[in-house]
């Protein structure tokens, strides 16, 4: 009978992710499940997703309740194939099953939920080396106990012991550090903490102004932490070019009707910008690297992250190998990713491994913006609104759709000249765009 039992483990959702929050069970104990059928919904730092059942059978036991946060690889449920049913959920969470059913199905569960991940997802702190594998950092029993008690993410703590082992002293240093956000998981806010507020009756006030205190969502705290870290890590420089979109506008207008009829969605400008950005990266690959201490990591792929605003904040799905796609291919990929981002169906892998990012606040009317680099990348392209303006062409005034495009880059590896040359080439690509680019 033992062979008929499958433990459901909290799957590894991506490198550097050590825990996930169970949003809800999609099946209740006693229910039949089929292999690959969605079993539960989980939420991590990066993404919300559904986890399929690793085996067919009856969900006999669940050890975790909705809302619980569970470490990766913990047993969260048991599925029993065959006839025996009738077991019910335990009232208390039980992270480690007492019985010893086979774990044979566990790797399958992981494989189903986790596509292969090639590069690190977790942006490193300024001091720590890039996380290049999913291994747990070397630490000690004492350090692990302290980390649990103090909610410290050990992957963010630089180790000073033998072979980089994290020691008690390192944890104490992390706890004492003025920006605890880099080390503390979830608990602390990277925003200025320790504001002195007062109680005025039942209202809390800040400098005499009544305030309402609201806990940031997990995603918000992570965004905040990432932004603070990025600004601390990379010296940001922004350079801006004005680009004539006449050619792109013409090409797009010509292709639009047929494209929409064929694909079922409109052809936006974004794929053209992604395409041009990729062409420019091919010529100036220095904007497509990461910095690891004194080393530059050159990347074999061009994976473009496109920022998408979603209800809870911001997510940056990644167009993998964008260098191999034409404009239409990019358009299809963006539509798919953005749709699934908004309906929370992205896979963890699809928000990882970006090598360059594009943000498009022009959609909302912004003319020029200075974004923050998405670590561990070194550059981000920001697109302004396309606006028709009078321009002087060959000493005549004409009307042209113009856009301000900015490149914000990490001055550790890219200098002003490099940034300008990148944009100059991007401008050349866009201003001379013809049908052959589609």
């Amino acid at each position, binding site marked *: 009978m033992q062979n008929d039992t499958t433990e459901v483990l909290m799957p590894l959702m991506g490198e550097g992710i050590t825990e996930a929050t169970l949003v809800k069970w999609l099946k209740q104990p006693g229910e039949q499940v089929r292999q690959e059928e969605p079993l539960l919904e989980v939420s991590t730092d990066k993404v919300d997703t559904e986890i399929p059942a690793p085996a067919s059978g009856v969900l006999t036991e669940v050890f975790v309740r909705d809302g619980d946060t569970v470490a990766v690889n913990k047993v969260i449920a048991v599925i029993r194939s065959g006839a025996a049913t009738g077991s019910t959920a335990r009232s208390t969470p039980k992270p480690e099953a007492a019985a010893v059913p086979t774990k044979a199905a566990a790797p399958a569960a992981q494989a189903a939920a986790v596509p292969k991940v090639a590069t690190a997802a977790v942006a490193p702190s300024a001091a720590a080396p890039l996380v290049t594998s999913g291994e747990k950092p070397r630490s*000690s*029993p*004492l350090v692990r*106990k*302290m980390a649990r*008690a103090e909610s410290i993410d050990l992957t963010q703590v630089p180790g*000073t012991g033998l072979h980089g082992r994290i*020691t*008690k002293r390192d944890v104490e240093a992390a706890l004492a550090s003025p920006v605890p956000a880099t080390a503390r998981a979830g608990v602390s806010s990277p925003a200025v903490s320790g504001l002195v507020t007062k109680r005025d009756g039942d209202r809390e006030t800040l400098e005499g102004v009544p305030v309402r205190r609201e806990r940031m969502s997990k995603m918000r705290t992570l965004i905040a932490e990432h932004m603070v870290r990025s600004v601390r890590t990379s010296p940001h420089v922004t350079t801006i070019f004005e680009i004539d979109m006449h050619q792109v506008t013409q090409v797009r207008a010509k292709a639009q009707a047929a494209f929409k009829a064929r694909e079922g969605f409109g052809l936006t400008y974004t794929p053209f910008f992604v395409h041009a950005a990729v062409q420019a990266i091919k010529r100036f690959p220095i904007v497509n690297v990461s910095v690891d201490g004194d080393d530059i990591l050159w990347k074999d792929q061009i994976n473009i992250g496109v920022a998408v605003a979603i209800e809870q904040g911001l997510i940056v799905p990644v167009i993998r190998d964008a260098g191999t796609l034409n404009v239409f291919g990019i358009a299809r990929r963006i539509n798919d990713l953005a749709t699934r981002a908004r309906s929370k169906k992205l896979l963890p892998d699809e928000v990882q491994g970006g090598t360059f990012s594009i943000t498009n606040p022009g959609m909302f009317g912004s003319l020029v913006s200075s974004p923050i680099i998405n670590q561990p990348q070194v550059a981000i392209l920001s697109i302004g609104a396309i606006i028709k303006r009078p321009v002087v062409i060959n000493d005549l005034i004409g009307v042209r759709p113009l856009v301000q495009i900015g490149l914000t880059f990490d001055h550790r590896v890219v200098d002003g000249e490099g940034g300008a040359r990148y944009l100059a080439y991007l401008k050349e690509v866009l201003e001379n765009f013809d049908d052959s680019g589609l």
Partner: protein
Amino acid sequence: MANAAQYDVIIIGSGPGGEVAAIRAAQLGLKTALIEKEAHLGGTCLNWGCIPTKALLESAKTYKKLQHATDLGFNVGTVTYDWERVMQRKQGIVDAQRKGLRFLMKKNKIDVHEGHGRLAGKGQVSVTTADGKVTKLTTRFALVATGSRIRTLPFAPTNGRTVINSDEILSFDRVPKSLCVIGGGVVGTEFASLYGRFGSQVTIIEMAPQILPSEDADSVKELVRQLKKQNITVETGTKLTAVEDKGDHALITTEGQKPRAFEVVLVSIGRAPVTEDIGLETAGIKTDRGFINVDSHYKTSADWVYAIGDVIPTPALAHTASAEGMHAVEVIAGHKPPVIDYSANPNAIYTAPEIASIGRTEQALKEAKVEYKVAQFPFAPMARAKIDDATEGFVKIIYEPKYRELLGVHIIGAKATEMIAEFSLGKILETTVDEIAHTIHPHPTISETIMEAAHVAMGGAIHL
């Protein structure tokens, strides 16, 4: 590169600090020289310290064991000893180790210069041989490992007959009928335990409130109880006022008491760093109460000079000097070894029973107002302790209550000095009491008391 130095590192002093540093330096590819002013390599440890004393203590242990051999089923008559042969065995072991050291120097291609080494300005070290010849050597780095010498008592000069020091006692020709040990430190207590077991009436006179002042009071209390069974009287809080040579005996006077006669008085009031006349001033290095101050990588105020062992204010122990020596030359060779954690540095006292410890004592923690808990387990219930006729002793673990981090471990009893190594490793790896309780210890061994003490901390010992 035209005027390259002769050596990458010159080490002054071949004790357990210098000798180990030299070998490690050579292994790391450094061109290495070792300077020694004594006739033999090995320093205090090999020639007048750890090794000869432990050799003698082994004879004392065997003597005691033979006296109780009937308990183990032997018919033995009166057991007698031949002091000359006891000393010969000790000397044989020392000689063999000296030879071994010479071999290791040769094997590692370390140039050994015999003579008095002195720093002689940046990048230079001079060697003065016994006949007064001075050689100048050039080097990129120097490592001062000149160790320590016996501290003397101004009003009790030694004479080699009735008033002697711990160097002289190692070649003393007999076991005196009565021995007064002045100073209840490690050296004095070990000699007391040695001669007591060979039949001397021993009195230890210690000024502090307890002998072995840096050890945990519980261990020392148990030791004093055991020493009494070895013809040893311990007088603590006692101030010595006079020592007088009377030809065939010595008279000692302590405050408020009449003079007492002893056949031999051993003066063992500690050791002082050897930092004079080694050219520190030529490198601009100052001393602080005789000690050289260094950073956490053993670098002195002069960039090219490092110092380790008894000349720096860290525990004056052979194994500590060795660790420091290796660390220093690794830094010189461009490596980045982790800073030495002295809280994992073991103390080992080879009395009967032995005392061994790491970390802090209960009295020190109390004084520092550090929150702690104690888990203790005695040897007595353990089968192995009965088999070994070694039921006296205990393991005392002092730990921090929140995470159960080890703060101090104090073991007294047979094999304590071997067993403490488990805690040194544990401490380095930042093990908590939990992991020790979950470590399977071999049965039947005395080391099971370690696991049992950890179980006490976890809520209850098994075999009590």
